[in-house]
């Protein structure tokens, strides 16, 4: 609790300095920006550096859940909840005996610590304690499992050993999060101050309240999680940092929507927490897959029937005063429905259902004219399909088929191609179809490395700039350095996810985390590279940063999957603590 005191002290100090700031702010707006445009990139850099260090250097020490005694007398630690057993060298438990099938069985640990063995189409069959197994059978510690005559025994980890492991595994813990959050708070306050120098009088109060509210909410979240004795906050830190940039974009481009943005963010974090909490119980999580798949299709169908066309894509639904993009929420459901546990994957070795489901989702999106989101779903599909099957041949075939379908679509619906006609030579169409991209480049360059100061941009006046061209707004108002830091923070999250995957418990979490991270990353790529004319401009949002409620909800929601894959000790609220597991 020492650092909390430190924080409090620091906050008090900042509090006492605020009146001086306001004086400074009123007296000379120019000089505030001149100083802050140097301060903000440095601050952003340190936020990323601290977070990245904590996320990327922890030691990947596998958790041990049980031991297996092999026929040759060796004792093998089991480091996942789901383990393949077979002759293949890529099995988790390799039994190199001619009678054992290449992929023979899957040994699965449930939430409650019970173990199950599932036959995944072996030739030699499985016998547990001399009882032959049809399909699956529970396994208890000390049981002798015979796989086509090759006998192994399952041994539990001993209690002392568990204790011991607790002590040794300090390296798996994340670093201290309080300091980084303090930096983020400073960043938020300075952002509000910077924005106020360019905002009109009536907006100043809104801006200060929104940023103060965001900072307060962030600390509330932090304190709540500390109370639950969680130690990992990097994922949230990055999300809060990006959300801050998003608030700044909204404050600059559409200050009237700042209040809405604030409440949506609170909702988004709640969804993040609820989904994360829901995911911690794998049995419960698994059961909801079908529901999620159905929900995805229903939402898209509703979209098809009720959707309104905005900017060429029919992806908005208006209910009373509320408007939202169902396709954003479907992202969460899509990932959820796509992931699966290993025993299931190996027992049913085909992707047919998933391909049909994905085809329905992506096809509907294409019908809606939302090609950007359709391609995001397609990437998520490819990632999930690859992770589930490793079957490059089928996936290449599907990619080729989709490419062909895309070509046909363009051939018979030339207006689709027309929308992307400026791609690659926007300067030649600077006043027509390349209008948005050229303005993005022009104003991005105007910002230089340090930016013109939040609120001081002009790109925001271009239509849809605060969603589709948000990278340009970051470049112009915040400078190239901060814009790149924003992108890099998502890259760090992705690398963190890959690291977590290698010590993942269940393929359910690993696939979901990788797929949602790939989705976020690809969406960022479409947004950034679309606005700067590396890719066609498709009008997708920059996760957390773009102005838009549905996008904010989806971004935080997808993050819950990443959180559920963070197996570092006591790090993530989406994973039960050891004591909670014993019950």
């Amino acid at each position, binding site marked *: 609790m020492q650092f909390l005191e430190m924080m409090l002290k620091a906050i008090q100090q900042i509090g006492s300095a605020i009146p001086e700031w306001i004086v400074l702010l009123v007296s000379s707006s120019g000089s505030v920006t001149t100083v802050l445009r140097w301060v903000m990139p440095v601050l952003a850099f340190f936020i990323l550096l601290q977070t990245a260090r904590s996320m990327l250097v922890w030691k990947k020490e596998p958790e041990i859940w049980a031991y297996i005694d092999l026929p040759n007398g060796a004792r093998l630690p089991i480091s996942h909840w*789901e383990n*393949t057993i077979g002759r293949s060298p*890529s099995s988790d438990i390799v039994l190199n005996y001619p009678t054992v099938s290449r992929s023979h069985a899957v040994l699965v640990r449930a939430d409650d610590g019970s173990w199950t063995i599932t036959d995944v189409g072996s030739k030699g069959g499985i016998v547990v304690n001399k009882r032959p197994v049809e399909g699956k059978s529970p396994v208890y510690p000390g049981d002798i499992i015979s796989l086509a005559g090759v006998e192994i025994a399952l041994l539990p980890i001993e209690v002392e050993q568990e204790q011991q492991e607790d002590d040794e595994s300090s390296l798996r813990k994340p670093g201290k999060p309080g300091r980084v959050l303090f930096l983020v708070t400073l960043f938020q306050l300075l952002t509000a101050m910077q924005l106020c120098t360019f905002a009109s009088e009536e907006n100043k109060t809104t801006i200060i309240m929104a940023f103060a509210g965001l900072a307060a909410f962030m600390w509330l979240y932090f304190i709540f999680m500390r109370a639950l004795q969680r130690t990992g906050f990097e994922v949230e830190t990055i999300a809060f940092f990006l959300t801050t940039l998003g608030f700044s974009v909204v404050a600059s481009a559409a200050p009237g929507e700042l209040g809405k943005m604030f409440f949506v963010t609170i909702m988004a974090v709640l969804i993040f927490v609820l989904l994360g909490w829901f995911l911690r119980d794998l049995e419960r999580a698994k059961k909801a897959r079908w529901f999620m798949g159905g929900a995805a299709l229903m939402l898209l169908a509703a979209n098809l029937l009720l959707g309104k066309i905005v900017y060429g894509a029919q992806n908005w639904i208006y209910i009373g005063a509320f408007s939202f993009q169902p396709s954003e929420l479907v992202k969460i459901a899509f990932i959820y429905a796509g992931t699966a546990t290993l025993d299931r994957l190996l027992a049913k070795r085909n992707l047919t259902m998933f391909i049909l489901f994905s085809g329905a989702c992506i096809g509907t999106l294409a019908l809606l004219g939302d090609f950007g989101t359709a391609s995001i779903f397609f990437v998520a599909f490819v990632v999930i399909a690859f992770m589930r099957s490793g079957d490059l041949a089928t996936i290449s075939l599907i990619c080729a088929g989709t490419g062909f379908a895309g070509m046909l679509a363009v051939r018979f619906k030339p207006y689709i191609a027309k929308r992307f006609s400026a791609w690659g030579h926007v300067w030649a169409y600077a006043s027509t179809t390349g209008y948005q991209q050229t303005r993005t*480049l022009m104003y991005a360059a105007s910002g*230089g490395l340090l930016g013109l100061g939040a609120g001081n941009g002009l790109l925001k006046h271009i239509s849809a700039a605060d969603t589709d061209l948000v990278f340009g707004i970051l470049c112009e108002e915040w400078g190239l350095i901060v814009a790149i830091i924003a992108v890099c923070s998502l890259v760090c999250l*992705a690398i963190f996810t890959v690291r977590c995957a290698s010590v*993942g418990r269940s393929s359910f979490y690993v696939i979901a985390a990788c797929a949602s991270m790939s989705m976020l990353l690809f969406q960022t790529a479409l947004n950034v*590279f679309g606005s700067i004319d590396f890719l066609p401009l498709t009008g997708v949002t920059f996760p957390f940063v773009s102005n838009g409620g549905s996008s904010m909800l989806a971004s935080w929601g997808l993050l819950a999957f990443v959180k559920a894959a963070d197996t570092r000790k006591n790090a993530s609220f989406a994973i039960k603590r050891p004591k909670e597991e014993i019950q």
Partner: protein
Amino acid sequence: MKKISRRSIVAAILSVAMVIGIAMFVYNYVNDGAAWASFPSNQHIYTNGVIASQRILDRNGVVLYKTSKGKPAYNENKTIRKATLHAVGDTSGNISTSAMHVFTDQLIQYDLLNGVYYHHDNGSDIYLTLDANVCAAALNALDGRSGTVGVYNYKTGQILCMVSAPTFDPKTPPNLSEDNNGAYINRFLSSAYTPGSIFKLVTSAAAIDNMPDLFSRTFTCKGSEKIGNSTVTCLKAHGTFNFKTALADSCNVTYANLATELGRGVLEEYAEKAGFNKGVTVSGISTATGNFGLSGASKSDIAWSGVGQYTDLANPCTYMTYVGAIANGGIPVYPQFLSKVTSENSAASSSYKKNVGSRILSKSTADTLADLMHNNVIQSYGKRNFPGLDLCAKTGTAEVGGGKKPNAWFTGFIRSEEYPLAFIVIVENGGSGIEVAAPVANTVLQAAVKALKASD
């Protein structure tokens, strides 16, 4: 699980792709940022497509172009407007090597670190190295003919005169659809012509360095000689003479024989040194490249290449730089026409820095060439045609074929500490170098020396 965990590499691959894409963007940003920011729709800078306030001036502070309160205006003198058009630029942005086009960073006060943060509506003053009056004199001397005149200080690199014709009055620009005979092209920077006899300065340098007995040799010219499968001709039979006279008389037969004796490799080496195939960079602008290449050339091709025909092409500015290097003892000082920028924003201000290249000719070779060129004036061109100037020069009369009159060239320099000027003149289809181009050069040089005297 092991397998599935390994497959998480797809997310890493996406990350790598993301980073590569961002790196590419940064690369473009660094290279093209100024051009993006200077797009006339940028309302940080422009009002109705014009920078609120800026000026382009000549070296003496004569305003060539300015905008005040968003309204553009050129110099009042029509001849100056036309003569400096290619250096200053037109408001439609058709002249891509002009100050308005190339010095955008300075005009919009852009820099990579700050973007346009320090852009000041009071604008900046861009001083060119040009002298408006010398340019006007050059345009008058061209007298309606196409061509180009360049004069620069071979010690500092400052271009005093850069005129290209045909030109137009930027105050009343012609229709884009009209055939303007390439009026948008600055011939000095962006064209390449067959050099003809001025190329003999390159062949000479090669001969001086590679033929120890060159100055003790005698040469005989019967008016024509069959070399390989082609006959090289002179205007008349030059008789028997030494090397000095061979250059003064510009004897094709002699130089054709020297070229075949020097051979492909040596000629290519010296042409490369003179900047053929490469061009030079003038205040950030890459000139057009010339051409000199003998791969697959026959003996007669080599012979013709040595007298500046065959496939030889010279960019006027690049060749002037070569002649300037001869004047400067073998070291080129690259020409520039941006002098300095003054601005209320000190970050956008700059002063002139000369751009010295590495040695291309030995001091003795350069000095020998200079003496030979001085002899040309005395022996052939007539010192009285260039009153008061200690001139070293070479003429060229380059055949262009197609029944057209040859292009007239005259290039050289003044040997003087006070007026160290090198020059090049081309009059397209003008005829003989000495008759047509030399008088233009004299007029311009007299004006240049007068201008330098006045500003001292």
